[in-house]
């Protein structure tokens, strides 16, 4: 293979310059090796920028993506971090003259697919007239018979259409595959654009790039228009959940479009309608933008083992009382067999052939095609006709003789289940790798949304490039990078209309109707954050005390260590005498072992999980702090590796700081809606509980004066009250003044009474059924009871001891703890959604003769 390298000019090799590989189609150069003018401008700009600046911008881009929480495939195990979305900073450029042709081709294609969908779930004229073989439809698992006859209002059945485009051998764009269920990538394309416009603001401005915002506005208005209910339609985005590989996009789109993000458990069918479970009860849902595969959407009529669906959803759809985009059953259009017949299908349905060609498809269900495939396996890609089937696509050229023989047998056994396509060489794009611009094969996913009487195409799309110059598979699953796609206008654009910034659209989702699951996650996020924080503070104190100048008595050590066990609830912990003698191992476990329930690490991971589940409600600043916590968590092991002797308290500092930042942000930048309120209730409850436990562990037992001083100091330190104490009392430690400060002093933001007063305020504001009465709700009564308990306590009684312990203090703290537990239960019972497990109702025996 000869490598004729083409350069844009004679540049020094250490500069940012692009060398195309002579062997493949390249997007930058034409067939004669001349550079396209729009590319010349861009590459010159990068050259002027220089490698160092480019690398800086890349760091900046990564930071932004990380801060936005842009991930693909969230951590499957809590210890491994999520994968940040990979963006290559060299955009893919398409001239507007070429794009014009592609765009009209894509519109036409979406129109045909729309008509095809209508026909397949309607009269099936294409079968009747013999345009499509019966087996191509009836044998495809994506053809869902229960969806027959379902119609969306308006001309369009297909609302969103995604298409993967590749540069064909004739130099024209051609279609590789269609995505018709819930095409993913549009949100990532938008995020890519947002990042690019921030990292290269002037480059972006000067290149006259077509904007994306109008596409999303059209999506938004189309979805709203599908509503059967014209009065303030409620549109939701249905996601399989935070563990889905593209969850970031679901949350991002929901936020950008101003719709609620829901999971199947948030929805319920009752009396013929779909409802969302909210704090305020059930509220009706009119339109669902689904990101759940159609087979999983209704366990009654579709896959009965699905946990991602809503029981009886389909019958509400059928009655026209909820609209789903794309409609259930649209997955059948992804059957590649239809591509073989697409020219005839277009002629029949549209009256003409399509301008935009598709890749050749050979269907093994056709005898001639099968013979061709069996003879030419090495030059073909073999694909199952149904995605998510038991087989993945294979590149025939990579198969051994033995594997080829196995495939031949399989194709003969199940010919209808496979198609084959020629192996294509994708067009190559300059991509930043190893500090250079290198050629990488590329794919473009384009998006169409129903608009007017036709479709509106996103100007650009999501470009993905192969990992290596010769990569065959290009997908996020194998680590391909993505690129922003710039449609370069030859004339200056009127940019006044739309901005691509996500804040451009108004979020009109009414705040009271948050799904109760989201609220529950915020509540627990508050609790876990606070729980981790109190444990951290106590552990930090313990570390400091152990390494302090003065040696501690054994008794004092025991009490402190047992307080750690009590606060973290890591039983038996230091109640085991053997561990008391050499506490190091157990202390490290209580900090950093994720498998140990109650450890700081496990609490923080639980908090991160709740944050992911309610991501769409968190500000970008909050997401940044969440990332800091995630980072600090991964660095924790290293920080603690020196053991107890090397100031381990310092390793905990970054986490404490990050948690403080989190609560500060929640206080300063979260809207005072119910989500915020529940997060705060969680925090206050947890802080009150933890403080109760710490006081109980450190002060109930009667100790010698010297020990008591150490313990009082530890108490104040871990409750962040030592400085206030010293300022106020200037004196030696006293039990009564300490208890006053940590229990009753409402000017101390960490005192018990302060937590209860705050709780009382929040609880008062929660929605309740009969707001007209003045009678207190059970929650309010419980909070009042706790407040009164403290207010009526007397310091001299609390500090008095008898038989070796402070009995009054002990009983007060214990009943306070019980009441706090009651408050938590009352809130959880009233507002949170308690998911019952569902099961299939089928007879497991045959019904007799």
């Amino acid at each position, binding site marked *: 293979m000869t490598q004729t390298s083409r350069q844009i000019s004679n540049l020094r090799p250490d500069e940012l310059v692009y060398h195309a590989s002579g062997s493949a189609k390249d997007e930058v150069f034409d067939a004669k090796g001349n550079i396209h003018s729009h590319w010349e401008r861009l590459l010159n700009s990068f050259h002027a920028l220089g490698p160092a600046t480019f690398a800086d911008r890349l760091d900046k881009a990564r930071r932004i993506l990380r801060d936005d929480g842009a991930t693909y495939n969230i951590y499957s195990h809590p210890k491994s971090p999520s994968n940040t979305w990979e963006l290559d900073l060299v955009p893919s450029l398409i001239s507007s003259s070429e794009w014009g042709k592609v765009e009209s081709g894509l519109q036409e294609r979406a129109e045909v697919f729309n008509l095809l969908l209508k026909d397949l779930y309607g009269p099936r004229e294409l079968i009747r007239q013999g345009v499509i073989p*019966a087996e191509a439809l009836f044998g495809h698992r994506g053809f869902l018979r229960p969806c027959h006859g379902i119609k969306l209002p308006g001309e369009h059945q297909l609302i969103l259409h995604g298409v993967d485009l590749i540069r064909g051998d004739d130099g024209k764009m051609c279609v590789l595959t269609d995505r018709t269920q819930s095409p993913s990538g549009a949100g990532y394309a938008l995020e890519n654009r947002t990042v690019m416009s921030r990292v290269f603001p002037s480059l972006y401005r000067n290149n006259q790039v077509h904007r994306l915002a109008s596409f999303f506005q059209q999506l938004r208005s189309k979805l709203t228009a599908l509503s059967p209910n014209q009065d303030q339609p409620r549109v939701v985005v249905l996601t399989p959940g935070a563990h889905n590989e593209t969850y970031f996009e679901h949350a991002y789109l929901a936020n950008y479009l101003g719709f609620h993000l829901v999971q199947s458990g948030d929805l319920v069918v009752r*009396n013929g309608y779909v409802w969302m479970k909210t704090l305020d009860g059930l509220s009706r849902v009119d339109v669902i933008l689904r990101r759940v595969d159609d087979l999983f959407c209704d*366990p009654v009529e579709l896959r009965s083992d699905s946990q991602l669906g809503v*029981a009886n959803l389909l019958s509400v759809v059928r009655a026209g009382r909820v609209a789903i985009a794309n409609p259930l059953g649209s997955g059948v259009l992804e059957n590649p067999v239809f591509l073989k017949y697409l020219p005839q299908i277009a002629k029949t349905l549209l009256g003409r052939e399509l301008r935009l060609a598709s890749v050749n498809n050979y269907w093994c269900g056709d005898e001639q095609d099968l013979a061709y495939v069996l003879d030419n396996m090495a030059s073909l890609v073999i694909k199952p006709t149904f995605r998510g089937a038991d087989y993945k696509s294979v590149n025939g050229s990579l198969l051994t003789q033995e594997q080829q023989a196995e495939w031949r047998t399989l194709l003969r056994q199940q010919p209808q289940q496979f198609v084959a396509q020629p192996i294509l060489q994708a067009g190559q794009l300059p991509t930043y790798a190893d500090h250079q611009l290198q050629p990488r094969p590329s794919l473009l996913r384009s998006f169409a949304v129903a608009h007017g009487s036709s479709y509106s195409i996103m100007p650009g799309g999501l470009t993905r490039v192969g990992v290596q110059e010769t990569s065959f598979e290009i997908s996020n699953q194998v680590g391909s990078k993505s690129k922003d796609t710039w449609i370069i206008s030859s004339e200056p654009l009127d940019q006044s209309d739309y901005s691509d910034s996500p804040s451009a659209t108004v979020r009109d989702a009414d705040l009271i109707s948050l799904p109760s699951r989201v609220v529950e996650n915020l509540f627990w996020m508050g609790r876990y954050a606070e729980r981790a924080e109190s444990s951290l503070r106590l552990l930090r104190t313990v570390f400091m005390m152990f390494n302090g100048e003065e040696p501690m008595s054994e008794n004092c050590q025991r009490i402190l260590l047992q307080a750690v066990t009590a606060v973290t609830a890591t039983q038996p912990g230091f109640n085991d005498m053997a561990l008391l003698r050499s506490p190091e191992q157990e202390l490290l476990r209580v900090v950093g072992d994720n498998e140990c329930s109650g450890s700081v690490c496990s609490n923080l991971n639980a908090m991160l999980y709740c944050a992911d589940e309610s991501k769409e409600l968190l500000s970008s600043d909050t997401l940044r702090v969440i990332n800091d916590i995630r980072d600090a968590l991964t660095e924790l092991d290293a920080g603690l590796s020196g053991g107890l002797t090397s100031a381990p308290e310092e390793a905990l500092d970054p986490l404490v700081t990050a948690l403080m930042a989190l609560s500060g942000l929640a206080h300063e930048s979260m809207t005072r809606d119910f989500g915020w309120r529940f997060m705060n209730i969680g925090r206050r409850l947890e802080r009150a509980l933890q403080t109760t436990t710490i006081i109980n562990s450190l002060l109930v037992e009667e100790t010698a004066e010297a020990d008591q001083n150490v313990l009082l100091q530890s108490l104040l330190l871990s409750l962040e009250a030592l400085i206030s104490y010293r300022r106020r009392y200037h004196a030696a430690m006293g039990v009564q003044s300490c208890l006053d400060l940590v229990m009753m002093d409402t000017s101390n933001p960490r005192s018990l009474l302060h937590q209860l007063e705050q709780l009382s305020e929040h609880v008062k504001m929660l929605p309740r059924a009969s707001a007209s009465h003045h009678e207190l709700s059970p929650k309010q009564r419980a909070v009042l009871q706790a407040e009164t308990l403290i207010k009526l306590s007397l310091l001299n009684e609390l500090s008095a001891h008898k038989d070796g312990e402070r009995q009054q203090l002990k009983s007060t703290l214990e009943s306070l703890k019980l009441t706090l537990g009651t408050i938590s239960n009352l809130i959880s019972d009233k507002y949170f959604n308690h998911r019952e497990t569902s099961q299939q*109702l089928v007879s497991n025996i*045959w019904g007799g*003769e």
Partner: protein
Amino acid sequence: MRYRIKHITEYLYSDRVSHCYNLAHMIPRNTLRQKCLRNDMQVNPVSSHTMAREDYFGNMAYHFEIQRSHKKLVITATSDVETGPQRSSLNLDFGITCAQAREQLAHSRQPELLFAREFLIDSPMVKASDELREYAEPSFEDDRPLLSAVMDLTHRIYKEFTYSPQSTTIATPLEEVLRQRKGVCQDFAHLQIGCLRAMGYPAKYVSGYLETLPPPGQEKLVGADASHAWLSVYSPTEGWFEFDPTNDCFVSEQHIITAWGRDFFDVTPLKGVIFGGGKEPALHVSVDVSRLG
């Protein structure tokens, strides 16, 4: 013939069901030889929402939703149906031969034939296999009339398989039924459908009821009947024709159709999702088919 069918399905749960969503195929459909004169569905506890509709295959599907907590669910479907015989003039020894039928199915562009091909393809519970084809093959000589060949297969299944209610469940695969040579009507229907499809003839699953007559001199017991299943085969010239391998016959006036589909999966009498309910609900079904006037 006119019949009244009373079909009672009762579920007893070990734990409370808070709410449930169900889909029943219990309302007899109209066909060329049958008319449903009246139907009444009673659900206890009372449904909060119900809906009846025609499904993809033209069967009546009945949806109901119960939002009140219960430990017992009773569905009573009462239907009056008028039935007639299949085409009376049919002589099995004439008509299209097996070879001709296959030829027409493969090449004809007639819409009815194109649509019949849906019933040639593997379905959720019936997959054609070499074993099934080998079993069926002796009945299908190329120049034998198709329907006579199908009747022969029906007869062989009747003769060579033992009716045995304890031997199979809904989950028993066809290969095992074939190996054991035992099963119930649903197994035999699936078996013959699989054989026919493996040979290249479209076949569908029919669910319904059969009037059983008491032995001479004895009175018929109420509730002793049961739901029944058989199959229908497609002949390019005669159309769909029903056979009952459990009773070694072609279908008569005593066969009352509820619904048809590719296999049992499409026409399950009752399926759904329940919330709560505990383990292993007890199911009791009783069917009573009685003649009217």
